[in-house]
């Protein structure tokens, strides 16, 4: 049982909370932009055509009152493309089946796909494949954003590859076609196991009337080329003819209800809420990421009954490891305490990861790391070998990993703590988190020292003023690039979440990963490092 030492009445607590609420406001503002899609005018025009917005379609598709974890919500943030990248992806429950939902937002440039939409879609399909989640596509897209075709065309083929691979893995795929699904987009219903087409709305063809006219001289209309009536009676591409959008969603839910779907992972045991209020997490997080905090205070507000059995509490104390349950699922937790990873922490983590694999226990990584320790004593002590052990263990661990960047994720610490490149099944960041090869000040400082050394070696004078300006510029650039928004915009995680929602997010994620078999790596015993 964890005992909290937080005083919610302290001034520091209140200041921390105020700072976090500011960060959350900033997040909410961007989320509202993403939800607004193409903006009021385009949404109004879409509705005037008697169509539902993508989020209305998703709400109707999902089981009532079931949670929906939207992913990559701020994709394309800070770019020329609309935040959210014209597509909505997320994990939700459809007719009792946990599924990946992928829906085009036709209010943004007709749902056209840009390089960020592509990465977001591919990430959703990858999550579906790794976790064995059936996929429901809500299709209405004008196709590729043609000016960006250079970055799009070649990798976009992967969508159809992923869809058919899912099918080969017996992971069902469903396409509900509400509108345009043309050219390349026509392969989405084409590659899915089930296709539902909405009467007089769905347009599924390789080439529309103008292209056909140009190519063959034939005069053909939309309906004859790719309407729901034609495809469900003549071509057979459509399995179901839906009289309207609601009907299509009803049929989609019926298809999901008939999948005879069974999750392969073990079911959860009954769970208790944490004994401490998750709301208080905001008061625990210091505004300055350089100030460490005790992750046990976060765990006390996250895991079932605030019960946490710590592993090696007296060894490698800069990293907290231990066992808990979350929404009834057993988990092993690795959480950074005082940012730096020393040899002891690396060895402790390695053993812990091996143990979790022995017991088929999913792992949760709570990142707040500045990386592996540097310095003569540590290099001579074999920090590279110990860090390598940890990275080896993380890489070859076969149990599901879930990663949250709570505050900072720098250097190889990001790798050792199961960062993006180590294929955590899902990965999220808190709104104030930073991620980079190193801290902005350190990086700028390193560049300055290297520059000074280079000048000295070449016998050139060193311009101190120019160096100060350059250092400041580099620091500002890296600071911006380390920001959680910039990181998530590039799909380096699966979204930014409100810290108070951590238990819910991890619970949904754990439930999703249990759609797949949960099994650890076997072969060697647990090495005592």
């Amino acid at each position: 049982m964890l005992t909290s030492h937080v005083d919610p009445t302290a001034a520091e607590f209140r200041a921390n909370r105020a700072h976090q609420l500011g960060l959350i406001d900033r997040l909410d503002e961007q989320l509202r932009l993403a939800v607004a899609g193409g903006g009021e005018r385009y949404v109004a025009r879409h509705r005037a055509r008697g169509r539902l917005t993508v989020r209305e379609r998703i709400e109707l598709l999902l089981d009532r009152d079931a949670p929906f974890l939207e992913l990559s919500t701020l994709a394309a943030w800070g770019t020329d493309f609309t935040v959210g990248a014209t597509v909505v992806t997320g994990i939700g429950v459809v007719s009792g089946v946990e599924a990946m939902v992928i829906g085009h937002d036709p209010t943004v440039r007709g749902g056209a796909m840009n390089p960020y939409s592509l990465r977001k879609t591919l990430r959703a399909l990858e999550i579906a494949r790794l976790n064995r989640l059936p996929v429901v596509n809500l299709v209405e897209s004008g196709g590729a954003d043609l000016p960006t075709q250079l970055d799009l065309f070649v990798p976009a083929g992967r969508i159809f590859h992923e869809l058919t691979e899912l099918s080969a893995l017996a992971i069902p795929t469903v396409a509900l076609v509400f509108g345009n699904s043309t050219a390349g987009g026509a392969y989405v219903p084409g590659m899915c196991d089930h296709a539902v087409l909405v009467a007089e709305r769905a347009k599924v063809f390789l080439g529309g009337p103008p292209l056909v006219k140009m190519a063959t001289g034939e005069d053909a209309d939309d309906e004859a080329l790719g309407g729901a009536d034609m495809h469900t009676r003549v071509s057979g591409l459509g399995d179901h003819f839906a009289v309207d959008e609601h009907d299509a969603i009803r049929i989609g839910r019926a298809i999901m209800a008939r999948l005879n779907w069974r999750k392969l992972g073990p079911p959860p045991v009954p769970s208790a809420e944490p004994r401490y209020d998750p709301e208080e997490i905001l008061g625990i997080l210091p505004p300055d990421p350089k100030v460490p905090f005790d992750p046990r205070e976060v765990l006390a507000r996250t895991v079932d009954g605030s019960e946490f059995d710590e592993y090696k509490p007296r060894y490698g104390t800069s990293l907290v490891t231990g066992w808990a349950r979350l929404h009834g699922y057993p988990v092993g937790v690795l959480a950074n305490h005082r940012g730096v990873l020393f040899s002891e922490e690396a060895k402790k983590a390695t053993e812990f990861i091996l143990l979790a694999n022995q017991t088929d226990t999913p792992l949760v990584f709570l990142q707040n790391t500045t990386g592996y320790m540097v310095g003569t004593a540590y290099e001579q002590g074999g920090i590279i070998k110990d860090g390598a052990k940890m990275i080896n263990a993380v890489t070859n661990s076969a149990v599901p990993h879930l990663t949250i960047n709570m505050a900072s994720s720098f250097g190889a610490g990001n790798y050792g703590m199961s960062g993006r490149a180590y294929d955590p099944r899902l990965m999220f960041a808190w709104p104030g988190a930073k991620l980079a090869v190193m801290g902005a000040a350190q990086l700028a400082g390193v560049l300055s020292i290297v520059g000074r050394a280079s000048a000295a070696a070449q016998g050139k004078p060193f311009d101190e003023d120019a160096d100060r300006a350059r250092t400041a510029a580099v620091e500002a650039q890296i600071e911006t690039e380390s920001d959680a928004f910039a990181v998530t915009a590039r799909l380096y995680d699966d979204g930014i979440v409100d810290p108070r929602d951590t238990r819910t997010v991890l619970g949904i994620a754990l439930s999703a990963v249990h759609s797949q078999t949960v099994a650890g790596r076997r072969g060697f015993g647990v090495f005592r490092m």
Partner: protein
Amino acid sequence: MITKLLVANRGEIAARVFRTAHELGIATVAVFSDADAELPYVALADEAVRLPGAAPADTYLRGDLLIAAARATGADAVHPGYGFLSENAGFARDCAAAGLTFVGPSPEAIAAMGSKTEAKAMMAAAGVPTLPGVTIDAHTDLRAEAARIGFPVLVKAAFGGGGRGMRIVATPDELAEAVASARREAATAFGDDTVFLERYVVEPRHVEVQILGDAHGSVVALFERDCSIQRRHQKIVEECPSPVVDEALRGELSGAAVAAGKALGYTGAGTVEFVMDDTGSFWFLEVNTRLQVEHPVTELVTGLDLVALQLRVAEGEPLPAEVTAARIHGHAIEVRLYAEDVPAGFLPATGTLHRFRIPDGVRVDAGVADGSVVGPHYDPMLAKVIAHGATRAAAARRLRRALRGAQIHGVVTNRDLLVAILADPEFLAGRYVRLPSVVHEVPADPVRVAVAALAEAASRRSGFPSGWRNVPAHPQQVAYTVDGRAVAVAYRFRRDGVEIAVDGDPLALTVVSATPERVVLDVEGVRRAFAVHHTDDAVYVDDPAGSAALGRVPRFPDPSAHAAAGSLLAPMPGAVVRVAAAQGDRVTVGQPLVVLEAMKMEHTVAAPVDGVVTALHVRPGDQVESGQALAVVEETA
């Protein structure tokens, strides 16, 4: 001594008789039609005998089967209850011939009172005041007789009861049609189409006197019951004593009733019914030679068990001293809870009674229990609810609270009407009550609709926060039907509580707790708890202030479900008695096409537009369900 009693009846009265029989140590036998096999009274009896079929003519009116059932089970007595064969002299005779004790008056007394015209003549001779009237035969000059009696006149079946075959006629021109239709109804209902005319007392009070006679020549009056509040000539509220009868008048009524009983040599329980005008003048109406539906009010104020006394008299014992010494203690009021749709014109309602619970503190004589199916075959009375109090006001208040807090789910009832009557200042003042027009005591107010949505959300709770989203999202949307109108609820659970709006109007409420069965809210500082009951097609929200039934609306409309335009649907379950048009007929708006009969009422389905009958789906004699298509009329341009 009676050792085993067969009750030749069903529902609440069978259960009522069984209770007393068991207390007296008498074994019991129930009879049941196929439609009634699962009703509680069948299980309550020691033994039960099936009467194949459902129609009364095949079951509870089959004296031969009832006597055979008594023989098969070794019963030595038959209690006829009320209705069915309770006032059939032939059945009473057949019982006697079969060696069975008939718990009721002599066949002669029944026969004498069976014909209303003969009864009236006999009572007039005995000095009981009677209304002017005449029996109609082929030679009757209707207009002349009606003029003699004075308008308005009442057309009434000679062998009827319970309001069937009864018509009020205000002008000479309506007379012929009223007599014809009364004859038709009397013929179907009672097998005899004799009807008579009688002075109709405008806004009469219906006051009746309970009498008990024994085989030793005593006839005792057990005070009056006031049954003035009726709908369609059916009593729905009854009380003892009458608020307009004083000791002197009570003496006069009792005297007249005892005179009537003596004239008949009456044995057992009977009721002498009178109409009374606003001056306290009263006239003989009829004698009901059986236990009345409303007998419990007499029991509650006298402390007597009328069924026990009936059995005692049937066993040849004299009436005990407590009967002659009986006094009125306090006041008792009974209401009849009917399965019927009041706003639709008291149409009988059917369905499965998913839940039937009446709060404690009142007497409930019920024929149904949780899960009972209310069908179209018999009288749609579900139960009688009877309250006793030191005063009339106390009894009314107790009864009102019990009705309001009752959980009656799955079948539409007249409960709101009864509550409205009990709250009506005219009723509480003891004056005659015209049925209140506002019958929705508790409309499904937005809070109750919200409660239904919150309880349903609670039933779907998964361990995660209900409807959790990590982006600003649309609220959860559900809809219900309330009195045929769709009501939309939108709600979203947030960190700091629930946002909920009904038909777009936000409600200021806090959820204290919510489970599928119970929701506690804080509504603007007032804490209210609601019980919620879910069935396949409705959600019921109850609290002590009342009950709301909310119909479920499917989340997705069925794309194939709509009836052909111009379809005429049956407004109630029933039997087709007449089809007044043929396929291909050109019809005008309002023209009757199909006549349905159910539970004492004929209902005409008329052409909604000028047009052509393009389809006709029913024939006379067909049994139809509510909502079934009867015919299609295509409008002509």
